[in-house]
């Protein structure tokens, strides 16, 4: 029996049409737009001005606080201006716009492709390096990585868990990275283990990626390395959720409202582990990432290496343009990704996939009255009653919503996915979350 989390979950059609497609570079754009809020937490602060010359990998924005990250230029050229541009949600945000001239990398970056396995830095130096290089969680949540590595007082990390689950349908960027950068990921994992001071790491991979499981296991067996264990997991969404993954691998349950470190675990995405390898061993800041282009009627689906700040429009043009019947484009996976408002928006550190939907599946089905089938209750991985929280949110009964653990929702969308009456459960639960959080905040201020 393969391991998995115990409560709820769904299994949407996997549709991994881009699996085993090699990571491909695309032509550099003429101009990049580097948003200043690319991470969870405070936005970064620009340290360049118009007409400054920048190189690839040069720091152009500093972290705006502890929970924030540095940003580095992804291209060489001239800063045109710092302006407000629409982000994925359509809100205008500050961004640095750079005209691309050539591709000159900062001298400090080691561009060699050979594997550097020896870890010379101390744990503290590793964390500082990761912070300096602007590494954030690449699974989509973009939480600054150095914050997760600084274990709060009174807690001890026991296990590092590498999240290579990629439970979202369609997405394959992590899968392909594991196939092409296997050794680097193992070294990245080692670096993270050293930074945390743990002796054991697990790499959790769903069983629909048997080649990646086999490859990683083989490499680790060759090295006779028992400190890292590859764990094959049953295919079930949302296994990539931190709490679900910890439960699946260690059997431990992160307490409600708590952090993974409360049960001795730190979870990092596999893409992050690779970025950490490049940052620590090759001095390379996070300025590019693998993005899966997929969906319905995509001219050239595949896994592409994109510089951060590449306008989506450029990416779309380079990959064969947008077919006429595409009505929706999603940034991320189909379960948790964000529908894009404007295709002039740039690729950010959190862009794991670009998904096309044609007119047959871009709109939701009409919502009908609840038939109380309890399917939403059965699939909720957090043990909530989505139908009820929705009812409370609809009637603005925020206190009732709070008592019914509205804030424990991880927004995985399983409830909305499974509802046979197509009810917008998660929309209302999100509304409830915002209001309940605001009420709690107001309460603590008093």
């Amino acid at each position, binding site marked *: 029996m393969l391991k998995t989390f115990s409560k709820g979950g769904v299994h949407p059609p996997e549709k991994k049409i881009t699996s085993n497609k090699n990571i491909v570079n695309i032509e550099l754009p003429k101009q990049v737009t580097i948003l200043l809020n690319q991470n969870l937490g405070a936005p970064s602060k620009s340290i360049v001005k118009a007409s400054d010359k920048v190189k690839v990998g040069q720091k152009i924005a500093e972290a705006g606080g502890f929970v924030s990250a540095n940003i580095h230029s992804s291209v060489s050229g001239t800063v045109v201006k710092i302006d407000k541009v629409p982000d994925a949600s359509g809100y205008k945000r500050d961004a640095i716009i750079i005209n691309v001239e050539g591709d000159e990398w900062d001298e400090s970056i080691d561009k060699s492709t050979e594997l550097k396995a020896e870890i010379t830095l101390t744990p503290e130096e590793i964390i500082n390096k990761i912070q300096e290089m602007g590494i954030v969680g690449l699974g989509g949540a973009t939480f600054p990585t150095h914050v997760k590595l600084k274990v709060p007082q009174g807690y001890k990390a026991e296990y590092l868990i590498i999240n290579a689950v990629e439970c979202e349908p369609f997405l394959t960027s992590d899968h392909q990275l594991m196939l092409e950068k296997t050794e680097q990921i193992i070294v990245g994992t080692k670096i993270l283990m050293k930074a945390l001071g743990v002796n054991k790491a697990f790499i959790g991979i769903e069983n629909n990626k048997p080649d990646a499981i086999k490859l990683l296991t083989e490499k680790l067996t060759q090295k006779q390395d028992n400190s890292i264990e590859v764990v094959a997991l049953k295919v079930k969404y949302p296994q990539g959720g931190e709490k679900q993954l910890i439960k699946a691998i260690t059997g431990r349950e992160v307490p409600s409202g708590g952090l993974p470190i409360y049960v001795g675990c730190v979870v990092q995405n596999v893409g992050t582990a690779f970025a950490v390898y490049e940052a620590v061993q090759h001095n390379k800041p996070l300025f590019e990432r693998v993005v899966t282009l997929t969906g319905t009627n995509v001219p050239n689906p595949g896994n592409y290496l994109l510089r951060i700040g590449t306008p989506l429009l450029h990416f779309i043009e380079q990959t064969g343009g947008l077919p006429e019947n595409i009505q929706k484009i999603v940034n991320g996976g189909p379960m948790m990704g964000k*529908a894009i408002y404007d*295709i002039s928006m740039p690729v950010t550190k959190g862009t794991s996939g670009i998904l096309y939907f044609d007119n047959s599946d871009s709109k939701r089905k009409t919502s009908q009255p609840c038939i109380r089938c*309890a399917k939403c209750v059965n699939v909720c991985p957090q*043990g909530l009653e989505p139908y009820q929280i929705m009812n409370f949110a609809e009637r603005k009964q925020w206190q009732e919503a709070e008592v019914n653990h509205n804030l424990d929702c991880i927004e995985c969308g399983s409830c909305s996915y*499974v509802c046979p*009456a197509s009810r*917008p459960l998660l929309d209302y639960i999100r509304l409830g979350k915002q209001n309940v959080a605001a009420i709690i905040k107001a309460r603590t201020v008093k």
Partner: protein
Amino acid sequence: MDNKLVVSQSPHIQTTDNIQKIMLAVIIALFPTTLFSFYLFGIKAVMVVAVAIGSAILFEWLTAKYILKRSSTVWDLSAIVTGLLLALNVPSNLPIWMLLIGTFVAIVVVKLTFGGLGQNIFNPAIAARIFLLISFPVQMTSWPVPFQKSLSMFDAVTGATSLGIMKEGLKNGEQISQIMDKIPSHLEMFYGIMGGSIGEVSALLIILGGIYLIVRKVITWHIPVSVLGAVALFSALMWTINPNKYPDPLFELLTGGLMLGAFFMATDYTTSPMSKSGQIVFGIAIGMLTLIIRYWGAYPEGISFAILIMNSFVPLINKGFKPKLFGALKKKKN
């Protein structure tokens, strides 16, 4: 860019399942037992099923159009399920006008008055069956003997069900072993070669339909297993205490409407609890109440009453039995 993009919140994909498909699955699951009843009770069973379904659709459509003045919900197929379930819960020689009163009560009074599918407190088919049983006790308990070729509504040879014979026998002070000689064998009961309501006789075919619903993920095992488990355990206990007064567990499981009730009536979405723990409590209570009525009540069969009673407890069960919150137990540090 001239054509605008659709923007909506995640998730961007939805299951292909819908209410209509779920109701269709229930109808398919009831096919075997329905067809078997046609074979067993002949053209009269066909008529009862056809009239019940037809009138249920008609009542649903008329009420939506002329009284509620809202778009019709006939296409969600739930009216067909209700009509079919009611038909399967009455004897095949029930006069048609009584049947029409039954579907009217089910669709208009019990279902639509409360707001339609998803809003009703009581299971429409069960409530209507009980309404008919109390209003027309004679006609509702005259069970035609299987394999009669007569087309007439009035001259069918009728007999009591096994449960009725058992109840009567025990009242007259007979021993269980004597009574058992007068009723079909356990194997005959399992196959369904006996009198009874149209769709309740064959345990085998009902279980098959139930398994289909579980595999098709329309229902989960929790309610049927806890109903049947409670009946099996409770009756085993009583049988052990006094085998002369209480029939064996297999008899209790295979007779009456228990199987149909456990798989198809107690599992009705709207009138059963939402959490798995609540469903188990609900199921156990139904099983216990069924036996209590069978042992000590006035009626030989108790499953309908048990379900109806427990329907009214569903809001309370939903309050008391919530699913277990992830991470609720181990609140170590804050």
